[in-house]
């Protein structure tokens, strides 16, 4: 009777379900948009009733609507009011509903912790699911609901899952370590660290990837944790997630600096064995030998060799990290040979991602300032393209200015002139002018040529040039002239012509030229009074800045003249009779009625100095040499070049901040203890049976993973220098082995499997599971024994005991968590 009723209900259930499927087909016929449209019209009451429905599809509809509201920033409906209706759906059988409820909880759990606790029990139940996806999800959901009383449960679950056969679950365990650390650092730090160190031994590259992320986030200073893993991580770096590659490279740079001895630079041409070695200098590009080789510690060599392969990475973060490694740990020569400079240029110029492009170009600028030879070969990459935006064009031009040499100057010069003439963008024109000016440092002839060219451009009445550009031109000429005024007398005369003929009309540019005459008066006095005389008639038509400078110029000239004639008797020279002083007085008189406060003010102050006859003060004030006006003159070599870069983004500089080598490194071999002796890794994949007969065997074959790598091995490996040193990947022997094993297992284990997994759900029977697992393992070792590798037998024996321990631990754990 009861049976028949239940049969009828189940039939009804299925009939209902089929109807719903049919309805779904009907809706899907109309496509996604109509579905969205339909769900938009759901009222609050409807959503609530859908959430309470027993049908999964209805719940799904309601959850989808809620997520849409959350995702579209729709404020018309307050979705928080559904909290209790949503939370109870965590018990749903459908993983998708579970996921959606979890996402909802992420946002709102902290607001109502008591209600959120209701979901915990349901999540805990799924922790023992046989599907690794669901286990991953459960652990994640549990660790994300940040309710203080949950911390111990998360900790226990985490311990259990660290030995899970699925790498995904172990990855998630690593994430929960990070979450716990961020959340309960003060209480649980020791415990967390212990779990973390255990997880570091995992052999799966995916788990190692996450471990590296957690290391970077939580324990960046605990570099000593890396000792036993250094060599293994270097070997598998190719197999890591690209983000983890970057994290690893950055971390190992710091590790090498602290624990490895400084590389030695060797001069192979020198005959004396004692004299030809110096430690790598801290300042880049300061190796005194013309030809040199670098002698590195074998572990450092291993690291450097293993990252060479990363140049094929498509992730710019990795490229940047590797470049930094070469910069921090090796010489410019090695950096160039590694091919990374070219790859860096390629990533920088080819990307369409503006943020990346700017940062990479900034980095190139930093490297190029340190050693221009790195990018010299490809200088043309920094010529402008028609569609470069302002920021990128200016950066390119700045890089270009570090790369100019005798061989390329002709072409660069021609290009720069074009940019200046035809660019419509003021900033780019200015940058190009500055780059052009920096060409001048190559030779005197070039310097003169450039100045003449600038004057010609100004003469040609590029009146359409904005004032900033003209100002920049004048500044450049000022800069070049005042570096060596005697050499450029002709240019100075031309400038005077420019002023007279009104070719330059911009106030600030004129002011700049007038100022220049004030400065060269000390060197070449003769021309200056004449210039002043010519300009005085038009004084009232000048702009405020030029007027100011004219007054100042006259004051300077007066001061010079008075100084020059101080020793002469009063018959020969009288201050009152001097024409220059007269001009000065005239200008002072005019200045008193000036519009500008500033000019009136300075006129009063200058006049008072001269009137009171304090000529010494005047000469001190007005004839002071001004070396610093020219800014970063190339003379200050002592300052670290990195500090000297003002216009480089501060974050980029911070990123490339040179880490100094830790001086007192004991060369780890001395005590007979190899500091980086490899700790055996744990390969949990062995618990897992592969159904796929053609599994793609990963190149980190187990034998490498499990036998500790001795020093000699590394030496041999590094001598091979990568290409062949890797492994024969897809079709290797290991691949064959895989197939054999899995077939065996396939036939032997299939019936056992669901049973084992199922029983895992019941805490009491956990011990049985461990027995089953270890027996499986024995059969596995048997099969690998047939392969005939002694190594593997041994190591898997070790594994056995390890995992048995782990398993017993977890069994107790699961009992606790079963509460």
């Amino acid at each position: 009777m009861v049976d028949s009723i239940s049969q009828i209900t189940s039939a009804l259930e299925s009939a209902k379900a089929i109807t719903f499927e049919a309805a779904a087909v009907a809706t899907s016929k109309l496509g996604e948009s109509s579905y969205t449209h339909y769900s938009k019209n759901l009222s609050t009451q409807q959503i609530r009733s859908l959430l309470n429905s027993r049908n999964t599809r209805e719940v799904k509809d309601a959850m989808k609507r809620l997520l849409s509201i959350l995702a579209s920033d729709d404020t018309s409906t307050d979705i928080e009011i559904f909290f209790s209706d949503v939370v109870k759906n965590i018990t749903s059988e459908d993983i998708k509903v579970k996921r959606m409820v979890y996402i909802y909880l992420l946002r709102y759990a902290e607001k109502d912790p008591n209600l959120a606790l209701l979901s915990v029990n349901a999540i805990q139940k799924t922790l023992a699911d046989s599907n690794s996806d669901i286990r991953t999800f459960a652990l994640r959901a549990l660790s994300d609901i940040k309710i203080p009383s949950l911390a111990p449960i998360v900790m226990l679950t985490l311990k259990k899952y660290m030995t899970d056969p699925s790498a995904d679950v172990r990855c998630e365990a690593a994430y929960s370590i990070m979450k716990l650390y961020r959340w309960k650092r003060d209480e649980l730090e020791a415990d967390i660290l212990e779990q973390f160190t255990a997880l570091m031994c995992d052999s799966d590259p995916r788990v190692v990837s996450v471990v590296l992320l957690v290391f970077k986030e939580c324990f960046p200073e605990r570099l000593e944790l890396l000792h036993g893993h250094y060599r293994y991580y270097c070997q598998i770096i190719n197999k890591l997630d690209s983000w983890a590659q970057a994290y690893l490279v950055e971390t190992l740079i710091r590790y090498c600096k602290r624990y490895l001895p400084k590389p030695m630079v060797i001069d192979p041409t020198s005959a004396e064995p004692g004299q030809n070695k110096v430690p790598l200098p801290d300042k880049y590009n300061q190796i005194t030998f013309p030809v040199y080789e670098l002698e590195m510690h074998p572990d450092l060599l291993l690291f450097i060799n293993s990252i060479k392969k990363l140049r094929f990475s498509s992730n710019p973060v990795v490229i940047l990290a590797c470049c930094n490694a070469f910069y921090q740990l090796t010489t410019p020569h090695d950096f160039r040979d590694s091919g990374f400079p070219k790859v860096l240029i390629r990533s920088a110029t080819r990307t369409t991602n503006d943020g990346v492009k700017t940062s990479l170009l900034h980095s190139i600028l930093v490297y190029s300032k340190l050693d221009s030879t790195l990018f010299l070969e490809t200088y043309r990459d920094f010529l402008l393209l028609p569609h470069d935006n302002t920021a990128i064009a200016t950066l390119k031009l700045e890089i270009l200015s570090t790369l100019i040499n005798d061989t390329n100057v002709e072409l660069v010069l021609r290009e720069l002139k074009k940019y200046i003439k035809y660019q419509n963008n003021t900033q780019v024109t200015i940058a190009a002018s500055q780059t052009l000016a920096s060409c001048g440092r190559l030779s005197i002839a070039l310097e003169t040529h450039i100045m003449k060219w600038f004057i010609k451009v100004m003469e040609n009445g590029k009146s359409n040039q904005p004032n900033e550009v003209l100002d920049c031109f004048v500044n450049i000429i000022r800069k070049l002239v005042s570096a060596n005024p005697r050499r450029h007398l002709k240019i100075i005369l031309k400038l005077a012509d420019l002023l007279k003929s009104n070719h330059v009309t911009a106030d600030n540019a004129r002011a700049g030229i007038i100022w220049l005459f004030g400065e060269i008066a000390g060197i070449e006095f003769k021309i200056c009074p004449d210039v002043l005389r010519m300009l005085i008639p038009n004084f009232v038509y000048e702009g405020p800045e030029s007027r100011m400078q004219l007054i100042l110029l006259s004051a300077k000239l007066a001061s010079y003249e008075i100084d020059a004639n101080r020793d002469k008797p009063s018959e020969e020279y009288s201050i009152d009779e001097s024409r220059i002083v007269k001009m000065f007085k005239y200008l002072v008189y005019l200045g008193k009625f000036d519009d500008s406060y500033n000019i009136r003010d300075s006129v009063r102050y200058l006049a008072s100095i001269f009137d009171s006859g304090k000529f010494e003060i005047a000469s001190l004030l007005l004839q002071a040499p001004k070396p610093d006006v020219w800014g970063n003159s190339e003379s200050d070599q002592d300052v670290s070049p990195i500090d000297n870069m003002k216009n480089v983004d501060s974050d980029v500089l911070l990123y490339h901040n040179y880490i100094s080598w830790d001086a007192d490194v004991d060369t780890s071999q001395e005590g007979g203890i190899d500091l980086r002796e490899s700790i055996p890794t744990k390969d949990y994949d062995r618990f897992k049976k592969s159904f796929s007969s053609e599994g793609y065997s990963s190149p980190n074959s187990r034998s490498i993973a499990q036998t500790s790598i001795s020093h000699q091995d590394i030496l041999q490996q590094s001598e091979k220098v990568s290409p062949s040193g890797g492994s024969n990947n897809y079709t290797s022997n290991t691949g064959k082995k895989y197939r054999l094993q899995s077939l065996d297992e396939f036939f032997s284990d299939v019936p056992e499997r669901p049973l084992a997994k199922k029983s895992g759900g019941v805490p009491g029977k956990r011990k049985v599971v461990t027995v089953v697992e270890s027996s499986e393992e024995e059969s596995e070792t048997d099969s690998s024994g047939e392969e005939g590798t002694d190594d593997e037998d041994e190591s898997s024996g070790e594994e056995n005991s390890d995992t048995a321990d782990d398993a017993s631990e977890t069994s107790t754990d699961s009992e606790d968590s079963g509460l």
Partner: protein
Amino acid sequence: MYLSFYVTDSNNGLIFQYLPSASAPTYSNFIIKLKSIYQDTDINSLSEFQISKYLKSFKYHSQQNNLDYWCLTSEENKDTSRVKNVALIDPYVFMEGIDELLMEYFDKEVLTIKKLTNNYDRLTMIFNYIIDDGEPRLGAVMYSNKVRDVIPLQKDLTKFISSTAKNITDVVSTTTASDLRGGFQPGTFGNSSRGRVGIDRDAGKALWRSATKEMYTKEELYLDFVESVHLVLQKHHHRHKGSKKRLSRSGYINNSLNSSQLTIVHGYIHGSIEGHSLLNGTPTVELNLNNNGTTIDTPSFHDCVNCDDYINDNEGKKLLNTKVTFIPPDGKFHLMDYSVGLDGIASNNIGLISVNFENNLGINNDEFEISVNIGGSVKVPSIKNLVVDLSFVEDMLSSDDRGSIANSVEHSDQYKIKIINNTHGRFSSGIEWSTGKWIFDSVTPTGTIAVLRGCVENTDDVAGSDDNGSHNSSEAKAAKKTNNHKVLHSVDIRYEHEGQLVSGIKVNSIEVTKANQSVNPKMIFKGVKYISRMKECEIREN
């Protein structure tokens, strides 16, 4: 750590937001805060924003989809430790990765706003899946196949009907024998993930391949080669020769095409290979490329390419061929990027189209003429979206000093470009007088020569009919030129076509090998498509 993500259109209107915690601000709050700190123009042009001491925001603009991705990051956690981890470009790269992932996931060339708004639930779940506690999830998560395994895409109608039918039979059979199936219950059908219970997804180690063993009835592999060219060319003018011609010429300049020489100032080809694979099992594909004399710089590969093999096969051997071995992911993927430098190549024949232009034509020497010669090709039937940008400048250095000073008083909007003769397409003037666009029909057949002739007209007649009166120049040449200070200085040409690559790279062979030869490899359909895009090609007058 990442606090929140926003996807907006180019006008900063919200399309999607992902707020994983109670503390994540909604987009409206975020943009109000941002606008209180930054100017509107800055918000549009910058890509990094410092919001407070620890809060930073980054923006990535996806050109392909015309979408902006924003993220809000916090560095509060890191402040406690001494070690400074500088995330220089990480957010940009991550957002770019998300953009690519979404395109691959939805199997679209371009993501439309509609697609995104219709899939809010999926988007939220994808973001949730790839970000864990504010950090990107590592461990082979960013592969679209992996995401698709976890968050299945809605299937289209036909598949749905067939799967429904299958489900019904399943239900019928399982209601009777449900206890044997362990955990499988009626009412949960239609959910494919339960059906896979027990199959461990990472059994095969090629993580980028889908774990769901969907069998393709017809096995296919497509590779699309896309090359985009950036080029700056310099025209070398033979001055004395040119001036002689100038006197007599008033006709077209087609025949003088060869007389002006073009040299490459700077240029490069950026190539990428987009794949689409529908292969069963775990296939290994060997791609052989004929380099055609070009050298490929260090390429960047998808994770599926075996770099060791690449190094062994190609590096340091100076071969004429390139060999790439890989195990393709399912569906769409981005196989590799390569780059070919064009600097220092003597050939002036890059691409199918050669362009020439000449100034100072006609009676008044104020006419210009551009000729576009689209070379004939067996492989390329037509050129798409051909546009020629013209830009004019004042011919300042060759003109007389005083003349230009006189001109400087004039306003530049007195000038106008007038088209005299046009064989193809249409001409549209830019906002400023100095720019213009010559736009062709969307498809232009190859083997045609198009000519545009026009003049720069000075609308102010007084200045125009100046007739050298104000110049007492002794040089006849200078006098001649004073009428025409505005000359065509450079043209920038853009187009794209299929059929062949600019670099000349070709596929020699694609070989698919599988561990178990269930299908004859010859039965697999392999398709290759070549697309060339001239992104920017500037040709400048000397």
